[in-house]
């Protein structure tokens, strides 16, 4: 691994560290809201990776300048960064916020029904409900189970 390689890749590694932090929050956190926050961080870090794919050293935002009559000017000396990842990520951001809002709405309902938004409490309540089910409905089919 020479220096060039490291300099050219360190950005990606930074994003990966961020991604993993986000993922860690999702997987390890017990609080439902915090899980959503983690999900956001995870996704945003992925977006950064995407955007960095499109970056060209010395490039500029892909918007053409126009002259006074509104005609677009093309200056061959200007290097534009790749606009495609931007488009993809615009879409992805919107998808992300849509997911977030749904997740939050679900959390509100969960809080109303279960009176908690901590996953270990929820797991406990669910286990109680399941064992109640099994108790009530357990002896179906004379001893087969």
């Amino acid at each position, binding site marked *: 691994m020479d220096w060039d390689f490291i300099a050219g890749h360190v950005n990606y590694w930074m994003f990966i560290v961020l991604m993993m932090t986000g993922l860690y929050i999702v997987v390890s956190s017990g609080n439902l809201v915090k899980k959503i926050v983690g999900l956001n961080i995870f996704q945003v870090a992925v977006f950064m990776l995407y955007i960095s794919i499109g970056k060209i050293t010395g490039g500029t*935002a892909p*918007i053409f300048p*126009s002259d006074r009559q509104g005609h677009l000017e093309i200056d061959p000396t200007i290097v534009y960064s790749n606009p495609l990842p931007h488009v993809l990520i*615009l879409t992805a951001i*919107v998808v992300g916020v849509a997911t977030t*809002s749904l997740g*939050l*709405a679900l959390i*509100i309902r969960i*809080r109303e029904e279960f009176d908690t938004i901590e996953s270990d409490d929820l797991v406990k309540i669910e286990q109680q409900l399941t064992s109640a089910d099994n108790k009530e409905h357990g002896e179906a089919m004379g001893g087969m189970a």
Partner: protein
Amino acid sequence: MHHHHLILRVVTKLLAGTIILYALYVQFHGDFSPGGGFQAGVIMAVAFILYGIVFGLVAVQQVFPPWLVHKLVALGVLIYAGTGVYAMMLGYEFLDYGAFDPGHPSHGQHNGILAVELGVGVTVTGVMIAIYYAFAGRAPRISDEDW
């Protein structure tokens, strides 16, 4: 919520108008500078949300009744898809805006982009306000004073 400061209320009214104007700018200028239907929709919604936060949910719902919001949500998607369907009816592929001005496809593209951006803007405005209404319509667990 009604005992907010007078200045806040006056400023909000002024601000809401300005924000709407800005939203319209972002909406229809998206092809020249950053921004477009989505951002415009968000900004537009913020104007109403701000109004709602200051004057209360009931007040803002009188200005912008929920049923209308819900229709807008659907309308925006239909505007977008309808643009594409219109191109299909002209014998082109779905969303081929060139259809709108066969003699001068880039004009057609322009018109098409404006139409679909409008669709996005309408839906996003609607959805954001609808979500705000839905959240604000719930009884809070934490009272104002606890913040």
